[in-house]
C-alpha cells in the first residue's frame, strides 16, 4: 500500500470535521473521495499533506508514519497536491511557479545562491528545462512567461497541476480539479489525469463531477459529516442506498428551498 490512513480524526472546536476515517490507496491506482460540502474531504487532504495535524490516528506513506510531520517534509517524500481554491504564486510567472515545484528535487542553498556559485548554474538550467517540459506536456508552454495571476481560470488549474507534477510525486492529491470548469475543460482535465496515471503516479482525488469520478476512479470513498459511510468500486457506490440517500437527500433539500 502506498498510502494508509488509519482511524484519523480531527475536530475544530466541537465540530468533528474528520471522524475516525480509515482507508488505503494501492500504488498506481486512482481513488476518489466524494461527499457533500462540509463532509471533511479537504480537511482529510490537509491531514495527509501535513497542513493540519490529526487529533488521533495514523497516516502511513510507503510504510512510514507521516502524520503530524511538517508539510515540507511530507512533500519531500513524494506527496504533492493541488488546492480546491487554486493557490498559485501570483507574484511569479507561470514558469517560476512550476520551478518552485522542483524545490525538493534540487538543493542549492542560500549561500550558493547569494554567491551565484557555478554549482547553481547547471541545477538552474535543469530545473528550468524540466519545468518547461512539464508545461509542454500539459499543453500550456505558451503561458510560461505570463504572470500566474493573469491567466484564465482553467489555465490556472492546469498550471497548478504542472507545479504539483514538477515535484515528481508518488502520490498526487487533487482537490476538486474540475470545480468551476466547463465541460470542455473538464474533459481536458480528465485527459491529463489519465496521462499522469500512465506516468505511474498514484492519485487521490476529491471531485463532485460524478461522470468524471465514475470514469477515472478505481475506487471510491464516501464521506459524510466527517464519517466514512461507504467504500467500494464505482459501480457498487452508485447502487449503495446510503450514498443515494445522502445525495438525493441533498437534492431534496435544495428542491425545497424557496
Amino acid at each position: 500500500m502506498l498510502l494508509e490512513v488509519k482511524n484519523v480524526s480531527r475536530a475544530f472546536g466541537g465540530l468533528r470535521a474528520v471522524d475516525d476515517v480509515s482507508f488505503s490507496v494501492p500504488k498506481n491506482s486512482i481513488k476518489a473521495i466524494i461527499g457533500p460540502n462540509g463532509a471533511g474531504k479537504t480537511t482529510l487532504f490537509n491531514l495527509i499533506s501535513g497542513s493540519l495535524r490529526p487529533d488521533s490516528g495514523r497516516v502511513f506513506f510507503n510504510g512510514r508514519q507521516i502524520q503530524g510531520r511538517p508539510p515540507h517534509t511530507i512533500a519531500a517524500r513524494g506527496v504533492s497536491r493541488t488546492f480546491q481554491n487554486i493557490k498559485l504564486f501570483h507574484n511569479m510567472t507561470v514558469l517560476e511557479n512550476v520551478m518552485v515545484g522542483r524545490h525538493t528535487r534540487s538543493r542549492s542553498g542560500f549561500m550558493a545562491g547569494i554567491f551565484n556559485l557555478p554549482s547553481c548554474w547547471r541545477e538552474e538550467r535543469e530545473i528550468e528545462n524540466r519545468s518547461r517540459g512539464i508545461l509542454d506536456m500539459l499543453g500550456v508552454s505558451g503561458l510560461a512567461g505570463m504572470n500566474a495571476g493573469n491567466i484564465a481560470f482553467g489555465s490556472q488549474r492546469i498550471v497548478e497541476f504542472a507545479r504539483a507534477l514538477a515535484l515528481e510525486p508518488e502520490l498526487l492529491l487533487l482537490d476538486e480539479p474540475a470545480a468551476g470548469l466547463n465541460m470542455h475543460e473538464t474533459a481536458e482535465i480528465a485527459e491529463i489525469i489519465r496521462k499522469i496515471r500512465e506516468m505511474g503516479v498514484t492519485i487521490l482525488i476529491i471531485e463532485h463531477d460524478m461522470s468524471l469520478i465514475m470514469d477515472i476512479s478505481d475506487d471510491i470513498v464516501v464521506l459524510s459529516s466527517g464519517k466514512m459511510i461507504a467504500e467500494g468500486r464505482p459501480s457498487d457506490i452508485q447502487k449503495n442506498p446510503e450514498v443515494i440517500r445522502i445525495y438525493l437527500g441533498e437534492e431534496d433539500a435544495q428542491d425545497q428551498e424557496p
Partner: protein
Amino acid sequence: MDAGRYIPVLILAAAVAAVQLFTLATGSEYYLTQLTMSAYYALVIIGLCTLMGYAGQISLGHAGFFAIGGYTVSVMTTYDFSGFSGSAVMGLLGTLGLASASGGELHLSPWVSLAAALVITVAVAFIIGIPILKLKGHYLAMASLGFGLIIYRIVLGTRIFGEADGISDVPGFAIAGGLRVSGSPELRIQNYYIAWTLVIIGTVMLINLVKSRAGRALRSIHGSEEAAMAMGVNASRYKLYVFVISAVFASLAGAFMAHLNGGIGPSEADVMKSVKYVAIVAAGGMANLWGALTMGVLLNYISLRGYLGSYDDAFFGAILIAIMLFAPEGLINPAVMKTAAVRARSLIDSIKKKTGRGGHAS
C-alpha cells in the same frame, strides 16, 4: 548563468564614478558626505526590501539592527579595556594586533568590534526571528515594532550606551592600505567609494539571491505560504534566514556609519527610523531591489540634506500613506506609475468637482 542581471550593476558603478567626477569638476565635493551616508542607509533598505518585498515579511524593527551594529562597534572601540590587560584574551588580541594601547588606554580594533557586532546581530536576529516569524501580517509588524522599541529604550537608558547623548569619539576604521572609514574631510572621496563599493557588493549578492532557487522559495512564501510548504519549501527556515540576512545588512550599515560619523546616537534606534525604512522600501516598489536602492539613495539624500526641515518624519509618513493609497506596488515600476497617475488625476478631478460646488455655497 545569465550575465544580463549584472548590466544594471555596471550602470550603477558608472553612475557612482560619474557623480564623484561631477562634484570634483564643480567643486561641490561636500555633497559626497551625504551621498556616503545615503549609501549606508541604502544598504539597510536593500536588505529590508529582500525581506519585505520578496519574502513578504514585514519588519518595523530594522533600526534596532542598525543600532546593534553601530552601538557594538562604538562601545568596543571606545571602551577602555586596560582593566583587562592582564587577561589571556586581551594578551592574544594584543599579539595579533587586534588591540592597541594609547595614552594609557587599551582599545579593541575595529575589526574585532565589527566581527563581534555581526555575531551579536546574527544571534539576536535568530533569537527574535524564531518566535516572531511565526506571526503574520499585522501581528508580525507589531512584534517587530516591539523589538525595535526594546532596543531603543535599552540604548537610551543604559550608561554604557551613552543614554541620550549616544557615543562619540569613535575612531576611524583602517580597513587596509590607506583605506580608512572616517569622517575627516580629506578622506571624503575614498569614503564615498568605500560606501558605494559595499552597496554594489550587497546589491549583487541580493540580486543573486532573489534569482536563485532559494530566492524563488522566498517569493513563493510571499505568494502563498501554504502552497510553498506543500511544494516542499521549509517556510519557517527560509523566513528566518532572510530575516537574519537583512538584519546583517542593517547592522553592517550601522557599524560603518558609526566609524564614518565618529559615533552614534539613540535617534538611529528610534522606531521612526524603522518606519522610514519601510516607507522607502514601499516607495521603491516592494519586490524591486533597484527601486528600493534608487529610493533609498534619493529619499535619504533629501532627508540628510535637511530639505525637509522639521517635517522630515511627517514627509515619510505622508509617503507611506500616499504609496498605500495610489501605488501599493511602489513608484519605480512603469505600469504602476501609469495607474498611480490615473488614480491621482481622478482623485484630483473629484476633489475639484466637490470644491467647485462647495465654492459657490460659501
